[in-house]
Each structure stands twice: as structure tokens, then as C-alpha cells.
């Protein structure tokens, strides 16, 4: 049903934005993590990569024209930029010169990402509200 397709697309948008919030939270939480679980040095900031995806054959346009598509998180990539070096010889993760490599996370950047994800989440939620109103209005025609 067409109405439900639009709802599903908004739902995929909500899921993607929630994933962005998850990743931004992970980056913020690990802004000072000097080691990772697998022992591969400090934490590296992550970035979700979003991909448009057509999950409804009826909407993807049988005749080849672009149809309405949803979104999904294709992958989460690690930022390969070098971390910041801090001189702290007493730190257990310091190298032989006394420098500790901290994650390449910029908290300001992450908070901005968080804000943008939260606003996009709201936008998707208001799309759902609009759809709801339209469905209600359509049903009111048949009163």
C-alpha cells in the first residue's frame, strides 16, 4: 500500500539518523580512549556512510524512472587522520619519547553532528506526522 511505503521510507530515515546519533555518542564517549579492545592503539573516530536503498519494488519504478527510496547505513568507516599527541611520560600508553596518542576526535565536531542528526530525526518524524494527517484527511472524505 502506497501510504505504508512512505511510512517505511520515513522509518528508514529515522533508523539512519538514530545510527548517526549512536556513532556520534560513541565518538564523544571515546574522546580520551588511548587504547582499543583489539589492542590497535587509540580509538579512531567513526563515521557512518549513508546509502539510498529501494526496498519496495513497486516504488523503485518498473519502467526505469527513479522512484522514492529509503536510506540505510551502508557502513561505518574509521577516520584515518592521525590522533593528537600529548606529552605525558607517566601515562602507561606513552611511547619511548613520552608522548601519548589520543583519539582523533574533536568534541565540538561531534556535538555539531549530534545536533544535525537530531534535527534530521525531527524532520523525518514530521514527515510521518504529515502522512498521518493526510491519511486522516483521506478517510474524512468518506464520512
Amino acid at each position, binding site marked *: 500500500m502506497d501510504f*505504508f511505503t512512505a*511510512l*517505511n521510507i520515513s522509518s528508514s530515515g529515522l533508523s539512519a539518523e*538514530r545510527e548517526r546519533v549512536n556513532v556520534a555518542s560513541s565518538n564523544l564517549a571515546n574522546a580520551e580512549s588511548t587504547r582499543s579492545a583489539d589492542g590497535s592503539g587509540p580509538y579512531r573516530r567513526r563515521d557512518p556512510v549513508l546509502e539510498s536503498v529501494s526496498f519496495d519494488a513497486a516504488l523503485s519504478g518498473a519502467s526505469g524512472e527513479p522512484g522514492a527510496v529509503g536510506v540505510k547505513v551502508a557502513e561505518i568507516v574509521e577516520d584515518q587522520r592521525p590522533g593528537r599527541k600529548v606529552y605525558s611520560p607517566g601515562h602507561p600508553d606513552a611511547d619511548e619519547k613520552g608522548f601519548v596518542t589520543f583519539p582523533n576526535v574533536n568534541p565540538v565536531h561531534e556535538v555539531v553532528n549530534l545536533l544535525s542528526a537530531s534535527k534530521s530525526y525531527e524532520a523525518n518524524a514530521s514527515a*510521518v506526522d504529515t502522512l*498521518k494527517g493526510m491519511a486522516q484527511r483521506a478517510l474524512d472524505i468518506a464520512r
Partner: protein
Amino acid sequence: MDPLRSTGSIGSTGSLPAAPGAARPGDRPASFAAELGKAIGAVDALQAQGDAQAEKVAAGHGNLHETALALEKADVAMRALLKVRNKVVEAYQEVMRMSV
């Protein structure tokens, strides 16, 4: 330009294509009761989905917005079904009021 001719041409293009799903002469149309039964089944399935999602959320491993949307779908489907039901009852009463 002959005005009569032009109106005639409008009339000739006025033949509407058969509505999709309209019963063609010869094959038996699907009964309304069967269609209504299918619709009720679909609405029931949506309600069950909403229930399952709500249970998951209550158990602590659900997805909030997907649950809200599942409930919303069930709500809209239920309202639509209710409209159909009301129309049917209305039509029935209209027929019963007819004086013979």
C-alpha cells in the same frame, strides 16, 4: 470550424477505459464478502505486528520509532476498515428503509 462537429469529437473521446479491477463480462466477480474478509485479515496482521513490536519494547530490546510506526499503521488500517463497515451498514439501512 463546425461547432457541432467539435462537440461531437469531444463526445467520441469520452469513452472511458475500463476501470482496473472492474469485473469483465463472463468471469465471476470476486464476492464482496471475500474481499472484505481479506481486508480484515490484513488489518489483523498489522495489529499483530504492532502487538509484537510493543512486546519487544516492553521486554527492553525493541525499536521505539518502528513500534510507533507499526502501531500507527494498524491504527490507520483500522480506521479505514471502520469507514468501510460504516458505509456498508449505512447502505443496508438505506435499502431496508425502501418502501416496496
